[in-house]
């Protein structure tokens, strides 16, 4: 399995996805190797829950831009992965790539060893950027299209992403498989001093409105901030914003200009455990994304038994059923978002109703054991097709 991020290196949702998927696959007897980028303090090789994790030199010489860095990193990744596969006498049944960030290494390995390639496409450039405007964006888009073309099958985590990738890359229906993302509800069971932890973020009489995510345009944090005056007019609350991103300075200026610095708290990057505790302290978790291929944050909040308010868009629209497992609001709409948040905060019995429904749904549909079973079955069907084909070297 190739991924540009794996814990402790966590940039976005791919890192926890690959961590959980690989752990469960290993538990089911799939001999799993993860090749990923290095991280300060993390060993070059370690075994994590039975998974062999190999961290490669992520290319530290200055490079002109992110994409060029990534392609250079792929040179190192492919070199190391080729050595690993060769040391295993080529006895690797399948290569599983996550997003374009490892496309080059994965495609090269596929051809060198003639091993089938499976690609999970978590999100697309055309979706992240809401169109393709520059050669840089087109280049990434075409790299994604190349990966999808070279892959035996493409996995997407929601029905929305299935139709989106089919449209974006012109993929036939039978090439794309929907296997949802998962969440591990057990991580929210750890005991902690709730009042003491909560007091670091809000006053006792303030409700906590939680946002977790990268601070970029597509996540819609600015819409949430704009909705705050309407919320505060009816409820005493504190908005806690967890995460980093290019829009952070812009958002802080926005908050200051609105005279809301005392009601909106930017925590910056928080470690995994603190985020988990914070979920359990929150009164509502808001996912105001403008574009969201899946929406793992909503799922984590549901698993932590926090009521969710989400934009009715992309993968979020599939996870949440309005008035049953959460509240759906119009994307990029301040009025609608404020209405959704106050509805949950002002009606405890309604909040309890969606919270318990959501909890049940997460356990039934989004647990990693079930998801890993589906992935393992897909691996098996690809390997069976491969065995009967003529591409396999003799």
């Amino acid at each position, binding site marked *: 399995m190739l991924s540009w991020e794996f814990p402790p290196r966590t940039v976005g949702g791919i890192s926890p996805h690959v961590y959980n998927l690989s752990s469960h696959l290993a538990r089911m007897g799939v001999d799993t190797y993860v090749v990923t980028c290095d991280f300060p303090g993390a060993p070059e090789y370690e075994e994590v829950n039975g998974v062999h994790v190999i961290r490669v030199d992520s*290319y530290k*010489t*200055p*490079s*002109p*831009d992110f*994409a*060029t860095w990534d*392609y*250079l990193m*792929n*040179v190192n990744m*492919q*070199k190391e992965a*080729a*050595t690993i*596969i*060769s040391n295993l006498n080529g006895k690797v049944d399948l290569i599983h790539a996550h997003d374009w960030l490892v496309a*080059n290494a994965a*495609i*090269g*390995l596929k*051809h*060198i*060893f*003639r091993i089938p390639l499976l690609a999970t496409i978590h999100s697309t450039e055309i979706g992240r950027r809401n169109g393709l405007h520059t*050669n*840089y964006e*087109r*280049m990434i*888009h*075409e*790299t994604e299209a*190349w990966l999808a*073309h070279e892959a035996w099958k493409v996995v997407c985590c929601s029905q929305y992403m299935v139709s989106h990738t089919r449209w974006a890359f012109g993929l036939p229906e039978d090439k794309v498989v929907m296997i949802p993302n998962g969440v591990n509800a057990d991580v929210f069971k750890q005991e902690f001093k709730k009042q003491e932890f909560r007091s670091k973020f809000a006053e006792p009489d303030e409700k906590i409105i939680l946002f977790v995510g990268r601070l970029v345009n597509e996540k819609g944090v600015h819409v949430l901030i704009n909705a705050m005056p309407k919320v505060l007019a009816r409820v005493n609350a504190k908005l806690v914003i967890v995460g980093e991103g290019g829009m952070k300075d812009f958002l802080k200026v926005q908050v200051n200009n609105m005279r809301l610095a005392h009601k909106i708290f930017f925590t910056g990057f928080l470690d995994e455990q603190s985020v988990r505790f914070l979920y359990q302290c929150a009164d509502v978790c808001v996912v105001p994304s403008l574009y969201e291929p899946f929406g793992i944050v909503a799922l984590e909040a549901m698993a932590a038994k926090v009521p969710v308010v989400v934009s009715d868009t992309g993968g979020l629209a599939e996870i949440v059923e309005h008035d049953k497992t959460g509240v759906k609001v119009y994307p990029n709409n301040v009025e609608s978002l404020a209405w959704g948040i106050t509805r949950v905060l002002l009606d405890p019995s309604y909040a309890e109703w969606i919270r318990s429904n959501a909890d049940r749904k997460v356990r039934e549909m989004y647990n990693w054991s079930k998801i890993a079973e589906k992935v393992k079955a897909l691996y098996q069907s690809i390997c069976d097709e491969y065995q009967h084909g003529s591409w396999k*070297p003799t």
Partner: protein
Amino acid sequence: MRVIIFTWEFPPRIVGQLSHYVNKLAIDLVKKSVDTYVVTYHDSWIGYHQGVDGVKVYRVSNPVKSQINILTWVLNLNQEVERVAADIFYLTKREVDLIDVCDWHFTPAAVSLKRGLGIPFVFSIDSLEDHRSHGSSAPLNLSIKGLELLGVDEAERVLVKSEWMKQEVRRIYKTPLEKIEVVSPHSPAWIDEILIAYRKALGISPNLAS
């Protein structure tokens, strides 16, 4: 002996003098009974072609058409080069003796093929980034130098065309002089000297009669 040459220019695509050089190399290798393949780039004339001179040429295009610099263009092309080289490998029942990489462009492909399939390679240097960029340390030039260093480090032998270049490779990349072979294209016994260098890279007797 079966050799695959990697080059980013080969007739009819002519960027500089490397194209003519590689053409002459391939033709002369065929005359010496070397089964010679060339893997190169062309945007429109793609696929397999065997000329009257007996050189087998595979041309690949770039799977990613939109590019932002020479480096991304090259790095997206490498996997196509690997694909074709691996195809040759499997079609010839895994009997490819050596890859000759001409300049830096396809050193990543050669390294992966060496690590993955055990095909050794020689790195033939026509020109160096340090000279082309006048010693620039801009990120783009540094990255290209990084790929040259990768080639120099991982190759069995480095082939250069002059004594001066041999010293330059040592100066810039700290390469041991024993690893560098000087083969002048103007030498009367040029192709024999190339073959001797290939044989040294393969660890077999440099005596061509054996």
